[in-house]
């Protein structure tokens, strides 16, 4: 048995496909466990949300309630963070939220793979958010969008503040992606490390009954991880809303 806690994050080709599917400019493209899980997440969430609200009952079932609640939850979040004109970004934010949430939850299933524990995935999502913010800002305010980097302050402070504002804007995709990635990575590594304790104690002969202690701890950490899985999806979505709000309204509050 392999007890390396980092082994669960290895991206590898599946279904015994050793040959690449295709190659783009010399880079081989494989069908990996990550691609499979991303596909499952996207298809499962799309199918669930479509068919849960399809019959459109007046008295909703549990499934329809879940779909409607997630819709209202995200709509309220956007409305409170960006105001009325932020609602045109609802499809974008809702897709991001559902994708990250489902990836996190599918990753909690033992033996599966956490898509969001790969920095490549989270950084792609975060750069998509920042590109949307930049395009929105320039489309709405034109060159005046650059006023975002000039806070209301005396000119001698601006010499200091403008570089700070620029750096804080440019590090946003990094912090947004690393936050989600690090949370998922740390949580799953912790689970694997405590899993290693259970195996080590359980095979230690007379000490075997003691293995129940780390086992109980794993159950508790699993609950914490479920909370974190939801919370990180929520934080990702609300930070997207906050960044969009800045692009839409610059410094004046809605």
């Amino acid at each position, binding site marked *: 048995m392999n007890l390396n806690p980092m082994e669960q994050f290895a991206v590898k080709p599946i279904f015994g496909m050793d040959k690449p599917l295709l190659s783009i400019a010399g880079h081989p493209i494989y069908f990996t466990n990550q691609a499979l899980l991303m596909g499952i997440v996207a298809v499962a969430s799309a199918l669930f949300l479509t068919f849960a609200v399809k019959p459109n009952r007046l008295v909703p079932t549990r499934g329809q309630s879940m779909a409607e609640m997630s819709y209202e939850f995200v709509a309220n979040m956007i409305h409170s963070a960006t105001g009325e004109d932020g609602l045109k970004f609802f499809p974008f934010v809702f897709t991001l939220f559902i994708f990250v949430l489902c990836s996190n939850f599918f990753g909690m299933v033992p033996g599966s793979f956490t898509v969001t524990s790969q920095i490549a995935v989270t950084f792609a999502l975060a750069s998509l958010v920042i590109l949307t913010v930049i395009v929105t800002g320039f489309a709405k305010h034109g060159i005046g969008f650059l006023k975002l980097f000039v806070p209301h302050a005396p000119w001698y402070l601006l010499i200091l503040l403008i570089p700070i504002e620029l750096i804080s804007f440019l590090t946003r995709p990094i*912090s947004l992606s*690393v936050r989600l990635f690090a*949370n998922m990575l740390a949580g799953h590594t912790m689970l694997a490390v405590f899993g290693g304790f259970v195996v080590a104690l359980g095979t230690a002969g007379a000490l075997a009954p003691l293995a129940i202690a780390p086992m109980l701890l794993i159950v508790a950490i699993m609950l914490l991880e479920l909370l974190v899985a939801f*919370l990180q999806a*929520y*934080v990702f979505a*609300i930070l997207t809303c906050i960044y969009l709000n800045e692009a839409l309204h610059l410094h004046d509050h809605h």
Partner: protein
Amino acid sequence: MEVAAAKMIGAGIACIALVGAGIGIGNVFGSYLSGALRNPGAAATQTTNLLLGFALCEATGLFGLVIALLILFAF
């Protein structure tokens, strides 16, 4: 050999970032509780900010963990 040892020590030192995260999370929940006990009526409206503060705090500590993993596995 010294490089391997220095990597281990560096990764351990990088985990000191968790001190700050611990203090931060304690501050978030402590301030929330003291505020909520003074004005229980407004407590429910602030759970969003509470969770946001908690998640942002926790993430800062995890950046240290990322540095530790980078030292161990990327160099």
